[in-house]
């Protein structure tokens, strides 16, 4: 009964939960993404749950460290010398 109540047009909560993380990573096809987005807009359970995962992703992404520009410059120089045949 609960399950039927929770079902929204297009996808059920269970179906959305199954693909939610792939959806948040942009790894689902367009149609699935559209259906998940529609469900999240109206579901009081899945919408907030999705927000928690979004924030976990944001929090993890914030731990990303900057790459030292000098290292990138070193790698660019290495690449230039390599393509000129100065490094085997």
């Amino acid at each position, binding site marked *: 009964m609960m399950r039927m109540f929770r079902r929204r047009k297009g996808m059920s909560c269970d179906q959305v939960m199954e693909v939610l*993380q792939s959806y948040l990573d942009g790894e689902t096809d367009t149609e699935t993404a559209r259906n998940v987005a529609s469900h999240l807009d109206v579901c009081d359970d899945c919408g907030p749950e999705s927000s928690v995962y979004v924030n976990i992703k944001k929090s*993890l992404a914030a731990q990303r*460290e900057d*790459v030292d520009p000098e290292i990138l410059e070193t790698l660019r120089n290495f*690449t230039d010398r390599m393509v000129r045949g100065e490094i085997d």
Partner: protein
Amino acid sequence: MSPPKSDAQVAFDKYVVPELEVLYRTARSLTRNTADAEDLVQDTLLRAFRAIERFDGRYPRAWLMTIMRNANINRVRKKTPDLLDDPEMTFERSVDFAETEGPEETVVEPVFDSVVTAAFATLSPDFRQVVELVDLNALSYQEAADVIGVPVGTVMSRLHRARKRIRERIGEEGLESSGAFRAGEPS
């Protein structure tokens, strides 16, 4: 005046040079060490340059990740010839990434972040690795699979289970709603 570039040089400029930063970030995830990461990128670049004429131009990042994986396997074998070899062991021995602090670019709640950081630190090396590659280094599932050398399904399974464990910790601390507020979502 510099001589005209060869086809290989043009292809390298087009497909490889734009990926230098991603290559370095990924190498750092694999090696946990700045000097080793630089060596691994250079080895990857050399291998890529030797193979560039056979590259069809499709999915350059995935192609480079496969090259880096092979270069890393070789690197670990050379470094630890007596170890029957699992490059992922380098993660077991690694410095704990969570101990280092990165720039705080987004407006985040410190408590929420500290719980995420702590939960991330307690993940198994396999799980931490996929989270780092996808969430921190922004690789796709396929690219992460290529660099680790596992099927995409394995990346998905590890990643999703890892995030669920982090999410459980958020739940245990009763922080779900603070996360929703931060995202600007309706409570």
